[in-house]
């Protein structure tokens, strides 16, 4: 009996647990990437004990990949040598870690996955507990197979209605971030549900747990249902196959319930310099941008690229705007290529890059100059994140990004394309 996080933790603990308890739990998978693995290796070596279970360790090269400089290359070398020496089975160079974790079936309902990356909350979209930790704890978990957690209070976000044309899950989540604020979910589990979530496809659901990180949450959860199980059955390798229990909240006691009817919402933009500086798109429409970036663990899935391609088809992006598209994973890239989306994007003047995180963290592949403004499909708009501390980042949906790419100014995706004369 309890909230979704209490139900998930109770199954793992083998007893009924309640908010406030400290638990030491076995973890199913331990994720880290090229930015965070070196420090985990350092902690592991200092502890001086062997790895508990190699089959639970998953390492990705995605944050500065392919290496944009010698130091990053040395970093990769160090990680690959470690993986070889320890005979670890899972090393991926196939794109953004969180997307690859889901595609590869590592994330299943009720599982506990920790990651040395703050957006490990993403896994909550599969009805799993996913949370971000620092590298040292990842090294600890390699050795112990365990991690401590305090059972958090839960904020329930109850979403009803259907979005209007031109309005997407990203707009809804940006709006929620504005309502709750960037510390509104700190230490909390944020449980997303209601009739709006129930009818959403997985690629849109993912946005909510993914961005729960931006409001400080320990995890963002969506109860697994048939949509989740169908994805696992049809899209993932053997490790992602069930049967899985559909864990749901049972007579939950929430700290707070936020109810929202999404049908009244228009497109939203999270404006420089904070994710909770949220405005209806109308208020910033016309603001000039020098770069449009469509990528990241938030919004670069196949369906996102499809939305963008449908808008850009047969048109040209603004010649003075850099438009960069980074498919979230190699698998997405390949499917987009096979189905002609990449050709449409390239014909429109987009630069399509290999999958990875580089632009979002200001490493490479889309760095901003002083005074520049970018509209992106990212989840985070901290000062200087994409490059110069004198640049600005605005967050929006892929549709808003595509319209903005055509005009070079923040543009409402509800506009009629012909009227824009593009």
């Amino acid at each position, binding site marked *: 009996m309890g909230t979704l996080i209490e139900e998930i933790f109770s199954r793992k603990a083998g007893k009924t647990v309640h908010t406030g308890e400290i*638990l030491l739990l076995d973890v199913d998978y331990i994720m880290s990437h090229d930015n*965070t693995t070196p420090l985990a290796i350092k902690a592991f070596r200092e502890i001086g004990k062997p790895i508990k279970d190699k089959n639970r360790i998953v390492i990705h090269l995605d944050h500065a990949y392919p290496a944009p400089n010698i130091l990053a290359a040395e970093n990769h070398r160090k990680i690959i040598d470690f993986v070889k020496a320890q005979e670890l089975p899972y090393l991926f160079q196939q794109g953004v870690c969180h997307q690859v974790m889901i595609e590869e079936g590592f994330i299943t309902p009720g599982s506990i996955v920790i990651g040395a990356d703050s957006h490990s909350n993403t896994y909550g979209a599969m009805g799993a507990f996913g949370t971000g930790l620092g590298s040292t704890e990842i090294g600890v978990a390699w*050795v112990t197979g365990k991690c401590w957690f305090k059972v958090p209070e839960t904020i329930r976000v109850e979403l009803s209605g259907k979005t209007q044309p031109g309005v997407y899950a990203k707009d809804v989540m940006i709006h929620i971030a504005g309502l709750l604020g*960037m510390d509104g979910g*700190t230490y909390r589990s944020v449980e997303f549900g209601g009739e709006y979530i129930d009818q959403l496809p997985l690629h849109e659901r993912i946005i909510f747990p993914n961005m729960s990180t931006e409001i400080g949450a320990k995890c963002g959860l969506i109860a697994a249902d048939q949509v989740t199980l169908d994805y696992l059955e049809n899209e993932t390798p053997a490790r992602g196959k069930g049967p899985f229990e559909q864990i749901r909240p049972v007579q939950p006691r929430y700290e707070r319930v936020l109810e929202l009817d999404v049908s009244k919402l228009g497109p939203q933009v999270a404006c420089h310099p904070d994710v909770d500086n949220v405005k209806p798109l109308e208020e910033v429409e016309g603001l000039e941008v020098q770069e449009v970036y469509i990528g990241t663990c938030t919004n670069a899935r196949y369906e996102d690229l499809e939305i963008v391609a449908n808008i850009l088809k047969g048109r040209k992006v603004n010649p003075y705007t850099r438009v960069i598209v980074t498919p979230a994973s190699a698998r997405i890239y390949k499917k987009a290529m096979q189905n002609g989306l990449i050709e449409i994007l390239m014909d429109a003047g987009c630069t399509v890059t290999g999958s990875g995180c580089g632009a979002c963290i200001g490493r490479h592949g889309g760095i901003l100059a002083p005074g520049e403004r970018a509209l992106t499909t990212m989840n985070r708009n901290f000062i200087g994140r994409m490059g110069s501390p004198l640049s600005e980042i605005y967050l929006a949906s892929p549709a808003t990004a595509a319209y903005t790419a055509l005009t070079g100014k923040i543009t409402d995706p509800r506009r009629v394309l012909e009227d824009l004369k593009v």
Partner: protein
Amino acid sequence: MGKAWTFGENMNTDEIIPGRFNITIDPLELAKNVFCEVKPEYAQTVKPGDVIVGGQNFGCGSSREHAPIAIKGSQAKCIIAPSFARIFFRNCINIGLPILECPEAVAGITEGDEVDVDLASGAIRNLSTGKNFQARPLPDFVIKIADAGGIVNFLKNHDIEELVA
């Protein structure tokens, strides 16, 4: 005893140490650029034993441990804030960087004040104003990690099960 360095609310990990500097894990190298965009004079003039006084949700954002390591590398004694972002909180405990939750002290300390902190008791004294504050006690298992000087040191001599025993 050290000088207080004050910072605003929601100080994020990119502001503590921008991503472009995270190509090293050397604490002293990272410390050269800590707070470089929000308070460039910090890295130049911070002295061992100085105290960081932050706003609420201190350390929000990335899971990057480079942020607390950079602060530890700068030889600041501890961070006092009304609240910490959760990954940053865990990271500080795990690497042995003392953190104290005390909204009253944050309200009662201004930049440059001389501050004395007793980490064991959580007593905070503002020597410049004569005011005393008491930080909230940390949970038992957190104290176990802190007392060992971080989780790595704890595990050298203990099993992880002893954390919650």
